[in-house]
């Protein structure tokens, strides 16, 4: 019998339990990336996760780290409190687009502008998932939701908000990147971005932000495959992937 080589192991910090996420939802992929980065940086024992409101409220069920729940949109303020109280811990928020880009707009803008030494993982799936698919600030023009059944209309509801572009403009932001997990290449890039973001915090370099453009097949009323295709075809042209701020690279003249 040929020698067997173990080429892959599940993340240690990821808890082995049935998922509550829908088939094709990319929160699972984003969770796994965060978990693997926590493993690789060996920071599980000093990490405090800040939960938010929405589908990802149950983040704490999947990651074996200390966690505190925040009111809707307030995770960056709660993270500020935790980090100021315990500056030696690694503090990150995990928020959806309704939470971060709508009700929590003030908290994210000011935490970023203050340059809080925290990491923000922002999952943008263009819809309020947990409440049943209502219009989000990131909903695309023409995309129909339960509260814009005729499709989002720019005249009435404005244009979808591009958070990475806005966050990158703020003085306190050290690192800001938009990623996707719609193919293996992008998944690998996403992991690099998350690792860079956590490393930025570990080195005391200030605010880091990673936006995931992700699927919500259930509320998009698409199959997981179709939803994944939509990311590349429809979302990424409007939400371009890439690094929007990297002050450390700028400093090094890269």
């Amino acid at each position: 019998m040929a020698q067997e080589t173990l080429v892959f192991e599940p993340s240690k910090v990821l808890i082995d339990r049935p998922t509550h996420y829908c088939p094709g939802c990319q929160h699972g992929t984003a969770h796994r990336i965060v978990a693997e980065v926590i493993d690789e940086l060996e920071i599980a024992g000093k990490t405090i996760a800040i939960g938010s409101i929405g589908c990802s409220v149950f983040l704490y069920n999947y990651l074996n780290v200390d966690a505190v729940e925040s009111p809707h949109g307030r995770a960056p303020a709660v993270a500020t409190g935790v980090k100021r109280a315990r500056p030696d811990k690694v503090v990150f928020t995990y928020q959806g687009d309704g939470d971060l880009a709508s009700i929590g707009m003030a908290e994210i803008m000011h935490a970023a502008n203050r340059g809080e030494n925290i990491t923000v993982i922002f999952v943008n799936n263009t819809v309020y998932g947990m409440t049943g698919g209502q219009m989000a600030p990131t909903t695309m023009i023409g995309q129909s939701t339960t509260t814009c059944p005729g499709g989002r209309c720019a005249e009435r509801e404005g244009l979808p908000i591009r958070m990475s572009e806005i966050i990158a403009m703020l003085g306190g932001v050290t690192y800001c990147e938009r990623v996707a997990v719609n193919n293996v290449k992008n998944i690998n890039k996403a992991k690099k971005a998350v690792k860079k973001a956590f490393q930025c915090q570990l080195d005391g370099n200030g605010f880091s932000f990673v936006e995931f453009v992700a699927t919500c097949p259930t509320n998009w009323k698409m199959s997981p495959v179709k939803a994944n295709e939509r990311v590349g075809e429809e979302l990424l042209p409007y939400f371009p992937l890439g690094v929007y701020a990297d002050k450390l690279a700028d400093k090094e003249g890269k």
Partner: protein
Amino acid sequence: MSSKTPKRIFIKGNEAIAHGAIAAGCKCFFGYPITPQNDIPEMMSTAMFEAGGDFVQAESEVAAVNMLLGSCAAGIRSLTSSSSPGMSLKQEAISYMAGSELPAVLVNMNRGGPGLGDIGPAQGDYYQSTRGGGHGDYRLLVLAPATCQEAYDLTMDAFDLAFEYRNPVLILGDAILGQMKEPIIPHPGKTPKDKAEDWCLTGNQGREKRLIKSLFLEEGALADQNRHLMAKYERMKAEVRYEAFETADADLVICAYGSVARIAKSAVRKLRAQGKKVGLFRPITLFPFPDEPLLKLALEGKRFLTIEQNCGQMVDDVRLAIRTKADSEFFGVMPGELPNPDDLEGPILKSLEG
């Protein structure tokens, strides 16, 4: 000054609260500017760094109280202060902190309302303070100082109580208390017995992970949590505090709290000098409310007049306390008016003679 004379400092009520917090070992302060409490964040903006802690002027009242939620989850003695309109904004997170059992200390220097109201003293936030204020079933432990010294002392106690019960504690003052200057005697507090290391978030190194939350979806879990909280609020009754002044032989007992109680006390003193049998009952804890001592006074056959600087809020609690034996009349000084002892004499005499 002889060596036996205790050191006194002449400060505002707001500053007394800040001094009390510092003496109690407060390490983090999060606030937002609003009159009439600005002396507190202004003082804390340097004091917290001197104490080896941190200070953030938040972007909003909402953010400030959520920062407080975070630092309390980390087990650190922390404070926020505000005034009425700002307290309305903080209610969401106060509900979350009560639900997740976090030992937050908050200060409300009550000003006139409703709406923008004015920046003068008022007691219109009694219901908001004692009924929870936000969504869901919960209570805060509410302390109502009447003097600068008491503001200092109760602020120190507030931190001990918050950690003992793992419950938010509210210090309810008003614009008079906040802006009035008096000499106070500072003193070292008790050694904190916070035991926060048993539950606070520090990272799960060498132990199981911890979760601080107020979401309970599992079958029966929320009911259990509410029963647990209800039992805790019942246990808090051990903390009842009040001042009874000249009540022993009084025919009429004035019920009042905070600055208004102090003004009423002057009126009581003046009327006592005229031989009128009046006394003052001043709840110091507004929750838990001193029901039993009030009922005892009712059983002795006394009559009651509740005086507040609002349209009648604490009078409900007085009436509930004495409901089987007596009733309470009510006199309201309106928010927007500045009461003085002479204003209260007429209503007191009317009740005494009526």
